[in-house]
């Protein structure tokens, strides 16, 4: 960006998304490049390698129609920076941050490098306090904590995008300044349109930035999309003091883009042909969440990914799981029963929940209720397996209460319309209605006084029947 940029017309080789430029000087690794085609069309790229006077440039769009004889390349002189600030809020852009909402380009005097810098671990403030999603199953059992990264693991065909947009549309942080950044990667046009539709209201209110890279847009562009989202989010959070929720979907598409670039560069493949550095690459995104000691604001990341063939040991969910602090797992089996969102509470976990829920943060009874719900669900599942083996007639009365409880839990608490935002009180009260199906002595994780306060002193069996019929 300093001095007149030199225009190189010396493209030697084009291979997949890569262009090799000869005769360059002063070009640094990871610099941003602009490629002007003979037709005048402008494309963008990143320097992947420099060797003497050779530069290998990865084109973000694609290389179709690029004629080495007529195209020229200029280099920015620095790794890519983008303008940052509140002017992004309320906008809809493509995966490279170019507006597609008919508005003016996004400009600003403050810029930041899209790659970010690692946060000094000693200034990190451990996450605390909740981001309330308005989704009962998440708020009650896997509370999202400010500064956390909590992915949604899904499989193809489940409504994970609907869930993600619903969270983006209705999440809140109890009245403090709050913004949402949504980065969609490799979405179909139908999904993209649906997301725009759901998020329109929040976007119009100037609380939301939407970055959309659709499935037919260049794959390589996807490498940039989450970085733009996080760079904007970091500035909103740590300079402007807002709480920012970043929703990135679908990370599986992102990882495929990384794999494609790696293959084009001829790198040695690791598991499933993903590059060996996929973990570090994902970490360079996910680790941009957090809070900083002595500053207001937080970045919370909610990545959404589809597990190819439902395989949780596939590198994308596996490496994600190693970096993130828990996971929300969607289940085809739950969806098959007509429940939305189809969350499987027993395989879902928010590791930081105890920092985000409970006395002073949500409600005094929250953590105990959550522990009791999970314990009871685990028991209910065992009972259901047993019932399948021996027949429900052989179950004890207590065991049958657990089955009633599970039904009430699913229908009263988990099942929720996609346009329904529930308050935390509503969510926890629904949890109590489900717990009412259980005999009192079974509620071992809840202090007796709390049980009495919420369920009164009536006989448990009647309560159970009531909750079930209520459902």
């Amino acid at each position, binding site marked *: 960006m300093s001095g007149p940029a030199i225009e190189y017309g010396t493209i030697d080789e084009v291979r997949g998304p890569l262009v090799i430029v000869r005769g360059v*000087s*002063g*070009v*640094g*690794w*990871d*610099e941003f490049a602009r490629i002007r085609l003979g037709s005048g069309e402008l494309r963008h790229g990143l320097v*992947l*390698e*420099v*060797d*003497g*006077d050779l530069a290998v440039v990865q084109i973000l769009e694609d290389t179709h129609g690029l004629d080495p004889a007529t195209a020229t390349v200029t280099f920015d002189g*620095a*790794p890519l920076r983008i303008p940052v600030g509140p002017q992004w809020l309320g906008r809809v852009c493509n995966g490279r941050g170019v507006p597609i909402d008919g508005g003016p380009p996004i400009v600003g005097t403050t810029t930041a490098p899209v*790659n*970010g*810098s*690692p*946060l*000094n*671990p*000693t*200034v*990190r*403030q451990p996450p605390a306090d909740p981001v309330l999603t308005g989704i009962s199953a998440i708020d009650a059992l896997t509370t999202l904590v400010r*500064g*956390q990264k909590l992915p949604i693991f899904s499989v193809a065909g489940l409504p994970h995008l609907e869930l993600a947009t619903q969270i983006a549309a209705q999440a809140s942080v109890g009245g403090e300044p709050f913004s949402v950044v949504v980065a969609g990667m490799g979405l179909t046009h139908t999904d993209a349109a649906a997301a725009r539709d759901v998020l329109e209201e929040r976007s119009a209110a100037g609380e939301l930035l939407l970055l959309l890279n659709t499935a037919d847009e260049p794959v390589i562009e996807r490498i940039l999309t989450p970085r733009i989202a996080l760079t904007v989010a970091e500035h909103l959070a740590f300079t402007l003091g807002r709480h920012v929720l970043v929703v990135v979907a679908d990370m599986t598409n992102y990882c495929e883009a990384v794999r494609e670039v790696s293959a084009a560069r001829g*790198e*040695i*493949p*690791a*598991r499933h042909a993903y*590059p*060996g*550095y996929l*973990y*570090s690459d994902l*970490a*360079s995104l996910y*680790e*941009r*969440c*957090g809070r*900083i000691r002595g500053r207001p604001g937080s970045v919370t990341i909610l990545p959404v990914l589809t597990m190819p063939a439902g395989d*949780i*040991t*596939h*590198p994308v969910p*596996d490496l994600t*799981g*190693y*970096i993130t*602090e*828990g996971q929300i797992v969607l289940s085809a089996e739950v969806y098959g029963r007509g429940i939305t969102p189809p969350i499987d509470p*027993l*395989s879902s976990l928010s590791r*930081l929940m*105890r920092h985000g829920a409970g006395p002073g943060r949500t409600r005094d009874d929250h953590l105990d209720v959550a522990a009791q719900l*999970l314990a009871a669900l685990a028991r209910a599942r065992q009972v259901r397996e047993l019932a399948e083996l021996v027949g429900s007639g052989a179950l004890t009365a207590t065991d049958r209460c657990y089955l009633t409880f599970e039904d009430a839990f699913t229908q009263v608490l988990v099942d929720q319309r996609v346009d329904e935002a529930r308050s935390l009180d509503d969510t926890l009260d629904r949890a109590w209605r489900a717990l009412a199906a259980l005999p009192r002595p079974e509620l071992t994780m809840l202090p007796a006084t709390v049980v009495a306060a919420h369920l009164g002193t009536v006989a448990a069996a009647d309560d159970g029947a009531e909750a079930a019929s209520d459902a």
Partner: protein
Amino acid sequence: MTRDGAGAAGRVRRVNGPVLEVERLRGVAMADLVEVGAARLPGEVVALRPDRVTVQVYEYTGGITPGDPVVALGRPLAAPLGPGLLGGVFDGLLRPLSGAPVWLRPGVTRVADDRVWSFEPVAEVGQPLGAGEEIGRVTDAGPLPHRVLVPPGLAGTLEAVRPAGRYPAHEPVATVGGTGVDLTTWWPVRRARPYRARLDGAVPLTTGQRVLDAVFPLALGASAAVPGGFGTGKTVLLQQIAKWCDADVIVYVGCGERGNEMADVIEDFAQLADPRTGGRLADRTVIIANTSNMPIMAREASIYTGVTVAEFYRDMGYHAVVIADSTSRWAEALREFASRTGALPAEEGYPAGLASALAAFYERAGRVSTAAGQEGSVTVVGAVSPPGGDLTEPVTAHTQRFVRTLWSLDRDLAYARHYPAVTWAGSYCRDADAIGGWHVQHGDPGWASRRAHVVALLAEADRLAAMAELVGVTALPGPERMVLLAARLLREGVLQQSALSPTDARCAPDRSAALTDMVLGVLAACRDLIEAGVPATTIEAVDFSPVLRAREETTDAGQVERRAELVVAGLAELR
């Protein structure tokens, strides 16, 4: 340590991520340090050819251009070892992070130690001193006396020593055999510090975690690995060991792990009272934080830095524990580097040298007689994060060959909220017999038989449970049903241990033994009842919650024993 030729500048030729090729750089040796570009990014020489030097850079190389200068420093990657390590937080190259900027941009972290320390001489001028012998002490460097030793490789007469007073870290406080000795000395991290001899016999490291101390113990100076998929509680278990084990010094290496987790460790350790010294736990801990988004090559170095720091304290005669979370991320750094230099890949893209690199790391553990003849030890505990929980992947498979103790974490146990999720089927301890011998001499002659009993009971229960799934529990004979019952009591009442519990996060060995004995006693009593003709269903219906709650509700072995008597007496009433 500086050789001739330091300061000669070369020029960058090729940049591929953290790997550079440099031209015209002369007078460098393998593994020498260099500084790259105007920002003076640190890097290390990893390959030498007649016309090219390959360098791995420890920071983000964005913007580095062919033609940028590269300066050889003429010394290998070394860590400054001295007072001020305890209680500190450092990056993978042992550069202090406390006080560093909020955002770690390339080139901002520097080793700049301008603190002064109170030094008191111990040796007298004219005294002959060998390597590792004590010259004096620093009295204000944490709860442990910080001994200033004659550095390895140096010996001679103490020609001069400064009087008691306050001195900066990088200034000689003594002259031995013509060489000045600073309070802080440098040591190349990839080389093990020398010692006199390895010591025979096994002394257990008490971790305060029942399943470890009673079933899969770790000896001082041995090595352990903790493989486990995500969500199996690996990090919590390592943190518990760091908090409660009875070593003198803890070196916690966060190697390619989560930033929030590191923040948690730093905050936790700063708040926790140290049961041994009454101060803060952080005061005898060295934290090396190289989170997953920090430069990957510094992650590669952080493991060696950590074990070097531990050896430094070992040489002062202390027991140090290195906890590395996670060695898999370190191996990934090795793989990334190998791939960028075009090395031939072996298994899953890892370099062929992976196994020997792992072996060399774990072999730096040891209980030794130091150069000055004192006893000290370095115990290594490494987490392994197998991709997809696959224990046959190269890092896990190789690690298992080199460690003495394996604590395998199991996802099914973790999902059932059985923490620590150490599986009895997949874990082992190769020093168990030797540790049993130690316990015989130190007041617990029943340790080995108790452990054998527990291991056999758990294995038998697993076998029976598999059978019960087929035929139903009620089809099993009474004695077998008692085994299943006792195994459940053992799992829930002894092996499970809550890291969050104020009373049970740490369990003393005698209380741990008492809890186990209680369950074994209950089993014996139940078997007697079966023999006396009491139906198994009746015994199974007994409320065993006093046994299960004992771990939370008792604080010493005596209370457990009294409770055990009551439970057994209650059972006798069933006759």
